[in-house]
C-alpha cells in the first residue's frame, strides 16, 4: 500500500507533478507526431516531383532510354541519398540510377509494388522513403508497355530534423514544467500561509501568550476559527463557572453547617432542624451541579427543537398523569438551536416541569426563529403565575440557592443560568392561559 503523505503541500506537489507529467507527455507526443506528419507530407511531394522529372527525361524506342546527364545531379552521384529504378511488368530492372551503386542489392532488386496503371504508393523501408508509380508507356508503334518508376530518398535528414525538433520540444516543455512547479509552490506558500498562521496562533494559545484567534482569516477557514474562538470562550466561561460554583458551593454549604454545629442535640426540635438543614444542603448541591454542568460541552451543533420538546412533553405527561394536562406544542420542524442538546433539555425540562407543576390543566410550548436567527421559546401554563414583584428576583444572575425563593426558583434559576451562558436571556410575563409565561431568547 502506498503511504499517503501527511502534508498538504506534498500532496498538492505530487498531484501537480503527476498531472504535469501526464499533460506534457501527451503534448510532446502530439506535437512531435504533427511535425513528423508535416515533414513526411513534404517528403512525399518532393519525391513526386523527382518522379515527374524522371518521367519527363525518359524515352522508349525499342527499349527504355534515359540521358546520361540527368537534370537531378544526385542520381549520378553515388551515395547521394537520392535513387531511382525503373522495372517492367515482370519486375525486371530496366534502369537503375548510378547513385544506387552504394545501395544494398536487397533494396535495388526488391520486387516491385503491385499497382494498377496510374496508381502510386509511398512507403518507408530500410531507412528510405520509397515512391513507386505505375505507368503505361505508349510507343510510337502504338504498343503499350507497363513500367514502374520508383524514386527513393534517404530518411536521414528528416530524422535529424525530427531529432532536433524533439530536443527543442523537450527543452521548452521541461522548462515550462519547472516554471509551473515553481509558480505552484509559490502559490501554495501564499495560499497555506493562513493555516500556518492559525497553527502559530493555536500554539500561542497553548503557551498562554494569547487567549483567542484573530478574526481576519480567509472565508474558507473563517467558520473554523469562529467556532474555535466560541469554543475557547465557552471553555473560559466554564472554568470561571466551575471556580464560581466551588466558591458558591462552599459558601452556601457553610451556612447550614454552621446552623447544625451551633444547634443543641438535646433540644426537642433538633431532629427537625437536622432534616431541614440537610434538605437545604441537598438542594444547594443539586442547584450548583446543574449550574456547573450547563454549557460544559459547547460543540455548537444545530439541534432540532421539536423532537426534544415532544420527548419532554411525553415524559412529563407520564409524570403528571394524575393531573390530566393538555399540552399545546407549536414548534416548527425547521426550528433549530445552536449548542449542546443537554443544555437545551435542561432549560426546557426545568421550565416545562414548572409549568406542569403549577399549571392546572393546560401547558403550551411555542417556538419561533432558530439558528441562525434568535430562537424564541415560550412556555406557558394556566396556573397562578409568578407575582410581578418576584419576577426580577427569580432571574438574578449567579444567585445562590440560599437566596432563592422556594417553588419555581430552582428550575428557573438553573434555566436562566444556562441561557445566560449562551448570551441569551429569560423573560417572565403573564400568559393568555392565565398563568406564567416564560420566554427563552437564545441568539
Amino acid at each position, binding site marked *: 500500500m502506498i503511504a499517503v503523505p501527511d502534508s498538504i503541500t506534498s500532496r498538492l506537489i505530487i498531484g501537480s507533478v503527476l498531472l504535469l507529467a501526464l499533460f506534457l507527455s501527451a503534448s510532446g507526443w502530439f506535437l512531435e507526431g504533427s511535425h513528423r506528419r508535416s515533414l513526411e507530407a513534404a517528403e512525399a511531394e518532393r519525391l513526386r516531383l523527382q518522379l515527374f522529372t524522371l518521367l519527363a527525361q525518359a524515352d522508349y524506342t525499342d527499349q527504355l532510354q534515359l540521358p546520361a546527364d540527368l537534370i537531378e545531379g544526385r542520381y549520378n552521384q553515388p551515395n547521394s541519398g537520392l535513387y531511382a529504378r525503373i522495372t517492367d511488368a515482370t519486375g525486371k530492372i530496366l534502369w537503375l540510377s548510378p547513385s544506387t551503386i552504394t545501395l544494398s542489392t536487397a533494396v535495388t532488386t526488391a520486387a516491385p509494388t503491385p499497382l494498377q496503371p496510374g496508381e502510386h504508393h509511398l512507403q518507408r523501408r530500410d531507412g528510405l522513403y520509397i515512391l513507386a508509380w505505375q505507368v503505361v508507356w505508349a510507343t510510337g508503334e502504338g504498343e503499350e508497355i507497363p513500367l514502374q518508376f520508383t524514386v527513393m530518398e534517404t530518411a536521414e535528414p528528416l530524422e535529424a530534423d525530427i531529432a532536433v525538433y524533439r530536443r527543442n520540444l523537450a527543452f521548452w516543455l521541461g522548462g515550462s514544467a519547472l516554471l509551473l512547479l515553481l509558480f505552484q509552490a509559490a502559490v501554495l506558500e501564499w495560499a497555506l500561509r493562513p493555516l500556518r498562521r492559525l497553527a502559530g496562533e493555536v500554539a500561542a494559545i497553548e503557551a498562554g501568550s494569547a487567549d483567542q484567534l484573530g478574526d481576519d482569516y480567509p472565508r474558507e477557514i473563517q467558520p473554523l476559527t469562529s467556532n474555535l474562538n466560541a469554543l475557547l470562550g465557552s471553555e473560559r466561561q466554564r472554568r470561571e463557572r466551575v471556580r464560581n460554583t466551588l466558591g458558591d458551593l462552599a459558601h452556601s454549604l457553610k451556612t447550614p453547617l454552621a446552623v447544625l454545629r451551633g444547634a443543641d442535640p438535646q433540644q426537642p426540635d433538633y431532629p427537625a432542624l437536622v432534616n431541614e438543614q440537610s434538605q437545604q444542603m441537598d438542594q444547594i448541591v443539586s442547584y450548583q451541579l446543574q449550574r456547573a454542568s450547563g454549557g460544559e460541552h459547547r460543540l455548537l451543533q444545530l439541534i432540532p427543537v421539536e423532537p426534544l420538546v415532544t420527548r419532554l412533553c411525553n*415524559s412529563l405527561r407520564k409524570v403528571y398523569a394524575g393531573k390530566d394536562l393538555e399540552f399545546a406544542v407549536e414548534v416548527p420542524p425547521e426550528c433549530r438551536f445552536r449548542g449542546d*442538546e443537554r443544555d437545551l433539555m*435542561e432549560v*426546557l425540562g*426545568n421550565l416545562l416541569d414548572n409549568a406542569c407543576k403549577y399549571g392546572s390543566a393546560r401547558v403550551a410550548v411555542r417556538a419561533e426563529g432558530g439558528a441562525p436567527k434568535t430562537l424564541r421559546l415560550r412556555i406557558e401554563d394556566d396556573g397562578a403565575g409568578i407575582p410581578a414583584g418576584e419576577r426580577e428576583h427569580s432571574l438574578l444572575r449567579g444567585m445562590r440557592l440560599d437566596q432563592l425563593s422556594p417553588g419555581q426558583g430552582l428550575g428557573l434559576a438553573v434555566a436562566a443560568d444556562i441561557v445566560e451562558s449562551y448570551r441569551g436571556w429569560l423573560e417572565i410575563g403573564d400568559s393568555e392561559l392565565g398563568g406564567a409565561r416564560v420566554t427563552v431568547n437564545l441568539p
Partner: protein
Amino acid sequence: MRMLIVEDDPQLQRQLRALFADRGWVVDTAPDGREGRYLGSEFPFDIAIVDLGLPDISGMELIRGWREDGLDFPILVLTARTDWRDKVEGLEAGADDYVTKPFQPEEVAARVSALLRRAAGRSSDIVDYGPVQIDFAGRRVLREGVALELTSYEYNTLEYLASRPGEVISKSELTEHLYAQDHERDSNVIEVFVGRLRRKLDPAGSLQPILTVRGAGYRFALEPVSR
C-alpha cells in the same frame, strides 16, 4: 400489595423495605438488575421501585427488558442524577415516575400511592362508596364517618379487592399479593380476613361489600358515588 425493590445499596434497600413492610405489604428485594429481572418476571408484583445505577445491568435496561416481556406494573425510578436527559430516558424506557436521590421517605410513599392510584384508575386518594369511604393514601376506612379499626392484613385485603372493582379475585391471587414467598399459605386465613372485613364494614349485613363468587373467589361490589 406486593412490591419489588431493586436497589444495590443495602442501607437504602433496608429503609425502603421497612417503609412499605410497615404497611403490611409484601416486599421483595433484589440487589442487582439480573435478580430483579428474574423476580419481576416470576412473581405478580403490583409495583416496582428501581434504582437506575445498578451494578450489572442498568436500571434502564432492566425496565426496558420487563416492558419487552409484557410486564405492565407501575415502575418508580430512583436516580442520583438530576439532569433531564436521564429522567427522560428512564421514562422513555418504560418507567412511570422518578424520584431523585436523596429523598424523603414520605416522597417515595406519596409517589408510590399516586402510581397505584393511577393504575387502579382512581382520580382521588379518597373514594366514597356511600356509607363506606376508603382513604387509600391515609390507609383508613370510614363507615358512616367513623374510622374503622382494621389490622394491616385486613386493610391490605380490602385495598387489593377495591383496587380491582368488578373483578373476581381468587384466594390464591390474594395470597400471592398479601404474603411473602416463604410464608405459609393457608387459604383459610383469607376467608377469616374477608369474614372479619365483612363484619366491620357491614355489621347489619345490608351492604354486602364483598361478594363470594362460588368456586372462583371474591368480588368487591361497592360502587363509588359522586357527590
